[in-house]
């Protein structure tokens, strides 16, 4: 491999690595959003369980 070929490969590798790093960051954010959605789903489920109790108290 000549010096010129090494430099060309390095330049193309830079673009590839930067895009890969960006995808990695986006994947991390996506994992966080997934966790948040799960938390909110739990919260909504808890509220649904609690709400009939409130209604029963109000009626009683």
């Amino acid at each position, binding site marked *: 491999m000549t010096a*010129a070929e090494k430099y060309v490969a390095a*330049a*193309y590798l830079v673009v590839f690595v930067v895009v890969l790093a*960006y995808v990695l960051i986006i994947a991390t954010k996506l994992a966080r*959003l997934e966790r948040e959605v799960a938390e*909110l789903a739990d919260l909504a489920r808890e*509220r649904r369980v609690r709400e009939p109790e409130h209604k029963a108290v109000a009626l009683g």
Partner: protein
Amino acid sequence: MLPANCLPALAALALGLMVAAIAVVAYVAPVDADQGFSQKIFYFHVPVALTAYAMFGWGAWKALRHLWKRERGADLESYVAIHLGVIFGAMTLLTGSIWAKISWGRWWVWSSDQLVLFLVLFLFYAAYFMLRFSVEPGPRRANLSAVYALFGVALIPVSFLAIRISKDIIHPVLFKSSGPDMSGTMFFAFCVSWAAMLALAATLYHVELAGKRLDERLKELREVLAS
């Protein structure tokens, strides 16, 4: 806003164009008589730089829409475009440095106006994030960010024209008023590479925007459920 089902198609287009660009550069574009094989860096370096300009321009356009029409979501779109512009700007500086080392024997040349002006433009937009995140989220932050983004876009023609106005002999000028100063095959390879970079930038823009919008909606949902 891009329909959700169009994003995979855009990503597939970007991937296809990227593979095509690498193939065209490797097998179709001729080896430059003057610079030799190292000139092939041009096919990624220049499209990356032009895409950075395009993202800064798009960010400024969205900033203008925010200030002028109070368009909903324009502030977020402007922010995402500038974020990607800075990423493509960093790639321009890195690939440019590698090309400079093989062509001129140095990683950086301070006497080249185009290099220094691009660095100024990059640092100006890097400072955009310092401004944005030093202000509390809300209309004030959106307005300040929009004004800053609009000031920045004025630097693009300065950066672009400086090399043509000054007598810079280090950095080559390939796009002249008479047309591109390269063979038809080289220009074709350049166009495919630029299309690939634009498609990649558009894909990343919509992916990041979708993530940010989802984040905002989740915050709203959390507030509703907490109340």
